[in-house]
């Protein structure tokens, strides 16, 4: 039972999401068909079992020679074993297919998120994404377990039962056919329609709930401090009420399906019995066919009993699948070339020409015709007011944002002609809001360079002035940092991020506020160190700390997305421009 590699694409197309999922199971279709066959065999055996038992008894009551019924006796046993074994095989095969596809869907979601981050992911709350990945993906398994095989089995077995009855009493076969069609199509549809509203409400409510829960716990300290915890909890409770309400509606729909199914089954069997009894009374039907007929009708419904619930679950699976498709269908935030240009050998330099970025929807440009030169070995400091567009420059250079207009060049070629991952392998550094993973200090650092040896880790940590602290910890490098680094101080967290940049040591280094949350002596020492260590490499230093900028080659002042001043410290110090105003008016700056 080994499957070939499954293409993990949930490729964007116009087909309904459930069909796309079904298409993903294509390489496993052999197994899926096997499951359907086994399912049909199981249901068939069950129906035949009851019919045959009826035959057995009816015939026996006529006191025939024993041989006349011994075949049936053996067949009854064979059928009951056959039913059990085929049901077992069907379930194993269909679940296996479902779980394999599920895994592919999870991967496809992750791949999409990875391409979308950070800009494209922000439209979702992370807790909601979590439900899409966990609950919604799980809900789609009903497509394979309840959607495909029971339908096929019901059609096959129902058809066979009706055909068998046709040979006994044609009108009764007609009634049975009508009953089976009602039970197999009308009742499930009715259930699905009754549950539709609930299905549409439940999945989003589940997402909202998970989002509130994660947000609530992530922000618990702020909520408690501001006395807002009770209100936030009330919000979560309201979402819970929404979800419970949807659950209740689904319950009603399920119950409706069960009740209707019971009614249709009972009525059909009743009608068949009525016709049979009438025929017997008229002398056109004897006792054996009558028993077989009635019991076949009764047993045939075994093939359809599960369908109303399946229809409701399929409805839920459909909602889940479209929630998944919503993620996987989001367009790329940055263009990826179809044939990426290979990275040139170093050294690397970048140029921005009239770079303009407008964040949707419309609004003023965050970057407005900004030009910047970062040839190998040049160190440029980017300064300016909050919201001036500094981090946007970094995002553009790291291919996390697309330019609205203008060009960005890496060694003379459009940045967009390289694969984004390749670009980030040479342009990287320290983000403004570094994330610490819920792992150890060592793991969090090693992430920047997976193959790094211990000496390299030590060196990077030493340069970020982190080593004495790590050495003082009883668990050293193996100390966990807590959720989002909650168990380390702000300065320690910042240094860890800086150590990552040192360890990765890309040819083009972008540092966004590397010394935030640090004390003045540490800040001064680190900035000096940093600039000394990166000599010969292109460095973009984004900072609010105006100390030590005499060591950079160029200072660029941004304001409202525009370059308002540029030059070296010597030129700008007394130029009477924004740089001088910032320095003189405010004494020592910094975080």
């Amino acid at each position, binding site marked *: 039972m080994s499957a070939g590699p499954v293409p993990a694409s949930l490729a964007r197309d116009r087909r309904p999401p459930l069909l796309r999922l079904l298409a993903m199971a294509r390489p496993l279709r052999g197994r899926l068909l096997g499951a359907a066959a086994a399912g049909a065999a199981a249901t068939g055996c069950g129906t035949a079992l009851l019919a045959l038992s009826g035959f057995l*008894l009816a015939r*026996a009551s006529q*006191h*025939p020679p024993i041989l006349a019924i011994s075949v049936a006796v053996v067949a009854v046993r064979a059928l*009951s*074993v056959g039913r*059990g074994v085929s*049901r077992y095989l069907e379930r194993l095969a269909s*679940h296996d297919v479902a*779980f*394999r596809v599920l*895994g592919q869907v*999870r*991967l496809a979601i992750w791949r999409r998120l990875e391409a979308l*981050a950070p800009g494209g992911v*922000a439209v979702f709350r*992370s807790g909601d994404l*979590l439900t899409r990945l966990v609950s919604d993906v799980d809900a789609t398994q009903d497509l394979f377990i309840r959607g495909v095989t029971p339908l096929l089995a019901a059609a096959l077995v129902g058809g066979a039962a009706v055909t068998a009855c046709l040979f006994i009493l044609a009108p009764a076969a007609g009634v049975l056919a009508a009953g089976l069609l009602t039970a197999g199509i009308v009742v499930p549809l009715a259930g699905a329609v009754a549950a539709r509203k609930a299905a549409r409400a439940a999945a989003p409510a589940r997402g909202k709930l*998970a*989002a509130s*829960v994660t*947000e609530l*716990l992530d*922000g*618990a300290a*702020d909520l408690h401090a*501001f006395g807002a915890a009770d209100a*936030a*909890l009330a919000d979560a409770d309201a979402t819970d009420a929404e979800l*419970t309400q949807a659950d209740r509606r689904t*319950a009603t729909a399920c*119950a409706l399906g*069960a009740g209707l199914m*019971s009614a249709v089954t*009972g009525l059909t069997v*009743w009608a068949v*019995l*009525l016709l049979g009894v009438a025929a017997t009374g008229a002398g056109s039907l004897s*006792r054996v066919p009558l028993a077989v007929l009635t019991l076949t009708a009764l047993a045939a419904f075994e093939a359809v009993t599960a369908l109303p619930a399946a229809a409701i679950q399929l409805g839920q699976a459909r909602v889940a699948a479209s929630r998944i498709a919503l993620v996987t269908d989001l367009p790329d935030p940055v263009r990826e070339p179809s044939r990426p240009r290979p990275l040139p050998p170093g050294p690397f330099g970048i140029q921005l020409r009239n770079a303009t970025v407008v964040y949707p929807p419309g609004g003023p440009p965050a970057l407005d015709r900004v030009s910047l030169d970062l040839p190998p070995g040049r160190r440029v400091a980017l300064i*300016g007011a*909050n*919201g001036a567009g500094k*981090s946007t420059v970094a995002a553009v250079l790291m291919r*996390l944002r697309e330019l609205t207009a203008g060009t960005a060049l890496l060694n003379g070629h459009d940045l967009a002609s390289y694969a984004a991952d390749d670009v*980030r392998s040479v342009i990287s550094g320290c*983000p403004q809001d570094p*994330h*610490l*993973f*819920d792992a*150890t200090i060592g793991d*969090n650092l090693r992430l920047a360079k997976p193959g790094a040896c211990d000496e390299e880790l030590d060196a990077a940590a030493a340069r970020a002035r982190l080593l004495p602290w790590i050495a003082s910890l009883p668990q050293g490098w193996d100390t*966990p940092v*807590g959720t989002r680094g909650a*168990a*380390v101080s*702000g300065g320690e967290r910042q240094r860890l991020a800086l150590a990552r940049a040192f360890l990765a040591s890309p040819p083009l280094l972008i540092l966004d506020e590397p010394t935030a949350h640090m004390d*003045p002596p540490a800040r001064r020492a680190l900035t000096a160190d940093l600039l000394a260590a990166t000599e010969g490499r292109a460095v973009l230093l984004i900072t609010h700390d105006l100390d030590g900028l005499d060591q950079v080659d160029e200072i660029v002042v941004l304001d409202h997305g525009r370059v308002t001043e540029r030059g070296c410290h010597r030129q700008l110090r007394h130029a009477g421009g924004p740089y001088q105003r*910032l320095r003189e008016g405010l004494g020592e700056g*910094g975080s």
Partner: protein
Amino acid sequence: MRAADPRLLRHARAARTCLILAVLLGLAVTGLIVAQAALLARALAAAALGTGGRALAGTLLLLLGVVAARAVAAYGGEAAALRAAARVKSQLRRKLIGHCLRLAPAAADGPRPGQVGAQATRGLDGLDPYFARYLPQLVLSVLVPAAVVATVIATDWVSGVVIAVTLPLIPLFAALVGLHTKAATRRQWRLLAQLGGHFLDVVQGLPTLKAFGRAKFQEGVIATVTSEHRSAAMATLRIAFLSALVLELSAALATALVAVETGLRLLYGHLPYQAALLVLLLTPEAYLPLRAVAAQYHASAEGTAAAETIFAILDTPLPARAVRGTAVTGTAVTGTAVRGTAPPGAAAPVPDLRSATISLAGVTVAYPGSDRPALDGLNLDIGPGELIALIGASGTGKSTALRLLLRFVDAGSGIARAGGTDLAAIPAGQWRAQIAWVPQHPRLFQGSVADNISLGQPRASRAAIMDAARLAGAAAFVEALPHGYDTPLDEQAARLSAGERQQLALARAFLRDAPLLLLDEPTAHLAPDAAAAIDDAIRGPLAGRTIIVATHRVPGLAGASQVITVGGDRRAEPASRPASPLAGAVIR
């Protein structure tokens, strides 16, 4: 294999009426099935003797009535059972969320948000089959076989004895197979919950992963966890299906035994046709409830495994005082070392911070799980209206000192008093109502800009919100947003720049009508001019309040009544909660 978890049963009480109704209707359905079988048998037997339709009218009419009643009972039973499940799930969910929120400020060793998110949704949904099917079935599995066997014995005692003898095989086999499921399902659920916790962490850290080319690698981690989950799930399913197979076979063999035995006796004329038919129709119904209970046991195994992890969280004790306060806000998270220092029941009157002095003498704080102090020997007297600056290198305990004043941690040793009352004895909720805080890494929430600023002052007027924003230097950029103060912020306000987020957090604290203002590096991420504006606000419009500010900016110190250097060179290690089992996978 325990039949039912007592803790789950306790929660089932919330839906007692629904559950009892489900069981009663289940019994009614059984009665109706027996009646239907008897009527069918009578009709078939009578017809066999040549009785025409007219003579059978009574039987057929009765049968119609039974069919109708059965449909109604099926509807009612299903509705009651599923509603019971919805009810219990909701109750458990609320409990879980509330408890986690109460535990949460201990951040470092609280439950992981992603895991709780997965538990509250997917985990609890796994309990549907438990409450809706397993529990009612458990009752029915005792009553129904008894009723069926009684009916069969009354009809044909030989068959009745055969059923009664073979019946116990079902629970026996079920128990034998079921023994092996527990560990496997636990593993299955753990993997899924871990995937949840891990996923949340990596999604939030995606920019960092991308910056270092590690996002692709995560694909591998997610692929590994999912395929492990698949094999764990398939392992449990294999057992469940095998159990179903074994039970089905034993039931089928028993049924076949009955069929053959009745057939033979029928053949030799020892048994009337009608009785034989009735026995044939009823025999499977005797085994069905037991088989169903076994099947539902397996179907709800994941749910019960999830419930176990949820109960483990609910069993984590809250710090002494938090238990007493009914509201969530009455919470403090205490270092383990100091848990229970406050005498039980001694909620002291809350000192008024507009007049009371806070005095800290030799205060030491250690985080839970760590014995080395994060804050060591702080001495500080805080008079009303003072501006106090805390300075010191990273990790010396400035933020910890502020957390102490917020009652997120309690002093391990030393004296911490407010207006002469031990800080640890003051109800946290009322105490915090007098405090506004700018954390070192503020969190903004889903909602509008105005909602975020008014977090601690929900009834504030728009004018007051705008004043606070102006004071924090946020007014200009907020007004430039597409819908101004009503602009919705996405989670963590990703659409704002870091400095802008900080300014919103400042506005939020400034707006709160609180005499004590705790500012943890309030000008971090702010440009020099914006930082200077905050300095001016602290010394100007905010001067009436008591302000404690942890800062690294020299200009921020001007005008301070005291400048305290926190800590020597001693630093504490973080709490020793084991890292997430998947955490290492981020790297390798």
